[in-house]
């Protein structure tokens, strides 16, 4: 087990290095950073001076190593556009993204599993059919369309919920501002969280339902079913627990998707998170921000993957780590 974890971490480290190399290559070859850094009106001589000051005239590998050394210290340089340290720019926005992602994740896990279980109990009832049709739409609607439709119906037509932004936020510590503790903040959270969670919800619902249907067919469950109510509950719990392992694993592995869709959601709701920042930076070709965002995302995704692997091993003793 221990050896396995070490190996996983080592692998992730190599992946991170690969990602950083690709990022750095992009940074180097996609447009000359000096053109942007020296300002639009700089002459050739002034540009050369800036190139020298920043060490951009050194060979590729030297620059790559100093890039890595700086990145390890959390220094990704200055944003071309705002001239502000990139990492601070991203960290400032991260709380908003994390709050949105957690809420969406919670919504989709809670509703997805509940509805999945409900629809598996009487798979042919009307309610189950409605849920299944709904889930089919859930996986067939692109996130951006869900967001637009929610705004169109709930914000524009019914005026029930605010269509954009984060509402009132309250500073907790440092850069962490939360929208969880104000009514305004919570109201602002509903539509984007629903939008972001919708696809996941449908996926998890279908997974849970499929798993439950299968588990409930097994002999031991059938026996328990026959033996009476209390036994039924016990076995039901047993079945559910078996189903939950893959469901939670999938939910965790979908973290990358969640991050991707949060970019879309943040853009539609003008949510001041890091996804929105990435999109703006893409439009503005602010490469340092894009590179730092990718590196941080890679770090988050890889860390979560390792945790899930370990968790999976603990939950499911049948897996052996050789």
């Amino acid at each position, binding site marked *: 087990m221990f050896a396995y974890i070490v190996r996983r971490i080592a692998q992730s480290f190599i992946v991170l290095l690969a990602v950083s190399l690709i990022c750095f290559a992009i940074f180097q070859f996609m447009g000359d950073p000096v053109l942007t850094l020296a300002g639009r009106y700089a002459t050739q001589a002034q540009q050369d001076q800036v190139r020298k000051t920043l060490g951009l005239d050194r060979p590729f590998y030297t620059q790559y190593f100093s890039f890595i050394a700086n990145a390890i210290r959390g220094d990704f340089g200055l944003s071309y556009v705002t001239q502000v340290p990139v990492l601070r720019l991203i960290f400032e926005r991260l709380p908003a993204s994390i709050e949105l992602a957690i809420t969406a994740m919670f919504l989709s896990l809670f509703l997805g599993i509940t509805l999945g279980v409900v629809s598996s109990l009487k798979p042919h009832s009307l309610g189950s059919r409605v849920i299944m049709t709904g889930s089919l739409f859930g996986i*067939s609607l692109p996130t951006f369309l869900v967001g637009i439709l929610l705004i*169109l119906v709930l914000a524009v037509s019914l005026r029930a919920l605010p269509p954009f932004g984060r509402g009132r936020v309250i500073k907790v510590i440092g850069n962490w501002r939360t929208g969880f503790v104000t009514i305004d903040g919570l109201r602002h959270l509903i539509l984007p969280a629903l939008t972001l969670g919708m696809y996941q919800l449908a996926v998890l619902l279908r997974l849970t339902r499929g798993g439950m249907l299968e588990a409930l067919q097994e002999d031991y469950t059938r026996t328990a079913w026959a033996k009476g109510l209390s036994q039924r509950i016990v076995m039901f719990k047993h079945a559910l627990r078996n189903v939950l392992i893959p469901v939670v694993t999938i939910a965790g592995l979908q973290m990358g998707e969640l991050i991707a869709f949060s970019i879309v959601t943040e853009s539609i709701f003008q949510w001041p998170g890091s996804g929105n920042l990435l999109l703006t930076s*893409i439009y503005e070709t602010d490469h340092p921000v894009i590179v730092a965002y990718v590196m941080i995302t890679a770090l988050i995704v890889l860390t979560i993957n390792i945790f899930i692997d370990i968790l999976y091993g603990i939950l499911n003793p049948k897996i052996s780590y050789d």
Partner: protein
Amino acid sequence: MIRRLLQSKLLSHYVRDLSAVVGSVILLIVLFGAIFAPLIAPQDPYDPKILSLQDSLTPPIWMKGGQAPFLLGADDQGRDILSTILYGCRTSFFVGSSVILIAGTIGVTVGLLAAFYSGILDAVTMRIADTFFSFSTTLMAMLLLGIFKGGGIPLVILAIVIADWVRYARTMRGSVLGVKEDDYIQAARACGGSNLRIMIRHILPNAIPPILVVAAVDFGAVVMLEATLSFLGVGVPINKPSLGMMISLGKNYIYAGKWWLIIFPGIALISIVLGINLLADWLREELNPRLGQRQQ
């Protein structure tokens, strides 16, 4: 292969499965519209010569101010919405099928080779695949297109292919590993069949059904992805038709009550994805022996 499909009573099940019929009918309607768009569309919405600003924002024909030939209204450049949708669906189908063909071919080949030869090749490709996978197709395509701008539809296809091929490679590898040690493969090998021959004649056909399911689901995902990328402004360029772009444009008028700019392209997009997902569901149940048994 065909015999196998027939043996699984595909056709008779298909007719009995209502959702599959509904799915394919929807899909066929949209596909027909997309293929014959130049013939049936009232106008070519991307020919600047025939657009007129005078028609801009015409509402659907049954509403006050609606006028022929703008059945579903017109957008702010005076493009007929119905025509733009038909041409947009063309883009959706073109991108969708190009991606599953290219990514599928690459992925199947890589997966097959990796599983067949295992060892270092397998370890390296699967490590790459894992990395790609954890980043999500959407995020990768978004980043690729964000960095390499302005390549038009071919670049959109390329970016999605780069992000997407691992899906096929993993599936292929999984099913090849499943059949590799089967007796008949061993038998073929004992008879002195070459590796290539074994792979193509014996392993490939057995591993194809799960790939078909993946491809079907993936087609819907790619169509959604193209729309999303175009919606965000990193996909199809402004002067090419795309459902995502239409919705992005309509978003500006969301408070102006010009709902037709969003709703109609939205319906078209949902129809494609829903249609293919219904089909994919059916295909999955048919080709997955375990689930199939349960049904009987």
